[in-house]
């Protein structure tokens, strides 16, 4: 019997091999992250021209579908500036938008309040979201709320200030992150009422060479709080997935210990993030989602190299289950058209889809 995309993902998370690998390909970043405005037509448009019609788009069937809670993010649709629900102001006439004035300007929480969740999770919102989820029937549906625990602290304080707070103002930072964790736990609880398969966390812990805050600090400040949130997700009978950029090899055992089911991105160029090595060391305990290099082979490789790498990913990462095939990032606008086509065609080919 043929599996649905949803069943295929669940089998992989349970570390069972499937007929072929569930996959995702994204052609654009989330709203407001897009660089296409500065760098010309987006990749999907170029592929339309390359194939002579947009018919190819209907063949791409992303096994995991994301639903977002837009109100907690940045509305980049009009004006030059946007003040988010938390009080931080963003410049939104540039793509991607950027933080220009953080809500918390000194290391003190005096006078700061978090937004009321009732104003975000209205009855209308629920209605719309249920419809959006319903449209994704047969797919593995995740819901996410954008900036995660660490990221919310820096969008409240500014990136550099938050980084410094962690070392120079540890008491303040502890209080801040505790409040953010409390607030985000409330968000997760609301999301868990929905008929989704998993919660999509998103928090960039890594940079190219390692864990941005250092492994020890990550363990102290972030780990116990994520352990609680992942536990809530599991109690509700759902899966915990997380996007995370950069290198997190040093904390993989911790990530596994607190029960993350799926780690997304798996940026192969980052230090110690070679997917095959990760698979060998940790592959039986977590599911990897991503791994096709967005900083190397996709923009700079040749189409035949891309095809060869995709078959190696399928063969080795898919062995024993625990893998969802994907580029480490949405295809960036500078991707050569032939390379984008090689990604699409090799993904579909492994799924047994005859290509035009």
């Amino acid at each position, binding site marked *: 019997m043929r599996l649905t995309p949803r069943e295929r993902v669940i089998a992989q998370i349970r570390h069972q091999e499937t007929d072929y690998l569930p996959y995702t390909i994204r052609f654009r970043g989330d709203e407001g992250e897009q660089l296409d405005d500065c760098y010309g037509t987006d990749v999907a448009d170029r592929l339309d021209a390359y194939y002579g019609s947009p018919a190819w788009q209907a063949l791409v069937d992303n096994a995991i579908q994301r639903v977002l809670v837009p109100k907690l993010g940045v509305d980049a649709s009009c004006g030059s500036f946007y003040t988010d629900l938390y009080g931080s102001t963003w410049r939104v006439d540039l793509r991607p938008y950027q933080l220009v004035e953080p809500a918390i300007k000194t290391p003190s929480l005096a006078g700061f309040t978090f937004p009321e969740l009732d104003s975000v999770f209205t009855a209308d919102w629920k209605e719309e979201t249920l419809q959006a989820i319903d449209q994704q029937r047969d797919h593995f549906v995740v819901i996410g709320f954008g900036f995660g625990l660490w990221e919310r602290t820096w969008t409240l304080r500014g990136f550099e200030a938050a*980084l410094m707070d962690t*070392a120079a103002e540890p008491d303040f930072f502890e209080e801040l992150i505790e409040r953010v964790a409390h607030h985000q736990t409330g968000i997760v609880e609301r999301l868990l009422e929905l008929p989704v398969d998993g919660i999509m966390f998103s928090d960039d812990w890594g*940079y190219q*060479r*390692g864990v941005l*805050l250092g492994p020890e600090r990550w363990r102290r400040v972030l780990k116990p709080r994520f352990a609680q949130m992942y536990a809530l997700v599991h109690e509700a009978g759902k899966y915990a997935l997380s996007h995370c950029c950069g290198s997190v090899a040093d904390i993989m055992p911790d990530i596994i210990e607190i029960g993350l089911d799926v780690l997304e991105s798996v940026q192969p160029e*980052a230090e110690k993030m070679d997917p095959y090595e990760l698979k060998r060391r940790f592959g039986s305990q977590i599911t990897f989602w991503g791994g096709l290099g967005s*900083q190397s082979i996709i*923009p700079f490789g040749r189409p035949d190299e891309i095809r060869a790498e995709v078959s190696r990913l399928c063969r080795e990462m898919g062995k024993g289950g625990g893998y969802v095939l994907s580029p480490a990032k949405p295809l960036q606008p*500078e991707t050569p058209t032939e390379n984008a086509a090689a990604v699409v065609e090799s993904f579909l080919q492994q799924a047994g889809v005859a290509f035009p």
Partner: protein
Amino acid sequence: MADVLSQLAVRLYAGDAKAVAQLTLAALDGGLAPSEVLDGGLVTGMDRIGVDFRNGVVFVPEVLVAARAMHAGLDILRPLLAQADVAPTGKVVLGTVVGDLHDIGKKLVGMMLEGAGFNVVDLGIDTPPERFVEAVKNENPDLVGMSALLTTTMPGMKRTIDALARAGVRGSVKIMVGGAPVTQGFAEKIGADGYAPDAAAAAELARSLVGKGGWR
């Protein structure tokens, strides 16, 4: 006095801006020349934090906090160094290339360069080639440093080098590049003079590019 300087390096490493300012003044009061305080105290402290950062002993937050402490000392020393006509190790114009908003890596590089005795002009993020050209003309630096964190914006480095050449100033500067996706091979391909994978290596590279010897 040697004791004040080693204290200075230690407090800088620990990120204690107040102590760094106090010890800088104490060292000057004790009769040390501003350049001795810079080299023996601030540069030594930044060297240590840079090496430990590269070796994974300390992390980005510690480096930022140490650099803030360094500035507390540099602010006192700068006017004195200028008065005494002490030349910096060199002058660097630094920026994240056009279309790219990633900030922290470039800032860390700037801080480590200051810690290595360079005068740093930071052009900020999203810096178009023309701004680099203008800065090279106005500031007359020894070095230009470019940062790119996106494969999308890496070509901006090449465009900047071309623009410097067209403006007739390419020969007057050495160019170094870096940022997560940048590699030695890419640096060579676009005709840059050097690449470094991290901020400590960037300071080392800058010193060797201006002929002031390597690290240690």
